[in-house]
């Protein structure tokens, strides 16, 4: 039997491992900016001095997915870019999270047409959706704080959280095709624009 008696109580702290790891992770999220449209301009403003994303541990923008923790998709994603976004997500190492910034990334927005993906959650899993067209930097910061809250509540013992989602081999999709069709049904003004009339 080994008795470890610290000479003094100084320099010792006892805590839950979850708390410690999640505290470290949540406060050092490295974002991978995937900016395709005007949301990226607001994203740049968020990173600049006035709003200063670095206050929340996002000092370093990671322009390589291999060194990134959180993918921030800012802007509309056309179908031509869909496999690129999927590939970038697959290149990011675990643990990883993603934020869908703006109406277009979250739902296709006003671009209910032949060329634009109706929400990036049909391509990659999304943790936080930030609404707005484009969202103000405060909106993005709030979304990031929500993501930090989510990270802080994760359990290390829950292995499923870190499992890499494999798409269905036949359809290459995470979500069943009928669900995607149903989710991307036209809404609002779009219902009058689905057919050309010819």
């Amino acid at each position, binding site marked *: 039997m080994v008795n470890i008696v610290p000479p003094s109580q100084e320099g010792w702290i006892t805590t839950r491992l979850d708390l410690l790891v999640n505290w470290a992770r949540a406060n050092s999220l490295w974002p991978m900016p995937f900016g395709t449209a005007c949301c990226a301009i607001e994203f740049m403003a968020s990173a600049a001095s006035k709003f200063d994303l670095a206050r929340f541990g996002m000092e370093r923008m990671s322009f390589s997915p291999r060194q990134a923790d959180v993918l921030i998709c800012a802007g509309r994603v056309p*179908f*031509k870019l*869909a*496999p*690129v976004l*999927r*590939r970038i997500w697959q290149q990011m190492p675990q643990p990883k999270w993603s934020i869908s910034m703006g109406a277009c990334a979250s739902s296709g927005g006003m671009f*209910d*047409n*032949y*060329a634009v*993906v*109706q929400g990036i959650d*049909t*391509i990659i899993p999304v943790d936080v959706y930030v609404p707005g067209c484009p969202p103000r930097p405060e909106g993005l910061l709030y979304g990031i704080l929500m993501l930090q809250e989510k990270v802080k509540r994760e359990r290390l013992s829950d292995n499923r959280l870190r499992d890499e989602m494999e*798409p269905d081999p036949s*359809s*290459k*999709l995470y979500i069943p*095709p*009928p669900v*995607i*069709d149903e989710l*991307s049904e*036209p809404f609002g003004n779009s219902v009058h*624009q*689905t*057919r*050309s009339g*010819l």
Partner: protein
Amino acid sequence: MSTPALVTAGSAAPDHVPVTPRNLPNRGGPANPSAERIRLRFSAAHVRTEVVWGETTVYIQPASALEVVRYLHDDDAEQYDYLADVTAVEYRDLELPVQVVWHLRSIPYRRFLRLKAELARTAPLRVPSVWPVFKGADWLERECYDMFGILFEGHPDLRRILMWEQYQEGYPLRKDFPLRGRFSRSEQLRQALAAQPETRYSMHELSIADAFEDLPAEMRQRLARGQRPGE
């Protein structure tokens, strides 16, 4: 490679002082003098001339588009040295023909001319490419083919440019094309995700470009064997 000659705006017509036109009529008014010369020189190809808001539009037969453009580019009295745009117009009225539009600009004479060719819908939409005269027409005509399905005969590499090459839904800017596309959302997504990003902007495009010669020899060999980067 020779240094391109410097073109000064208005150098061919030094007496002409450019002024901002005012009180332009909707129709009519003085036409671009090039229009009359096209009518005299290509009497069989010339269809009609219109002047709208001071801008001249010359309608020509589609088959003679290349020779008219070549004349406008080469002739010393015209010197249309800048092709601003190649595009097409389709009207909702199915009776009306599809129009192909060329925007030409003569920098030495400070002139603007719009050429139009009307293609009947009964036959395949074919028009000669102006690529032999303007190399810059390459991507403009590819975009026009991609969006409208107009076949530019004589184009060296007529492929889709905005949509991907495997795109099967048709030509998006045609009036009979539904706004949301022909396939269901899941099918569109499935087809898009089936593509490999590395092969999308493939070295095939580099291999047809002049840059192919500048690539390292080992890379050229791999490409010649059909290997694509990232595989």
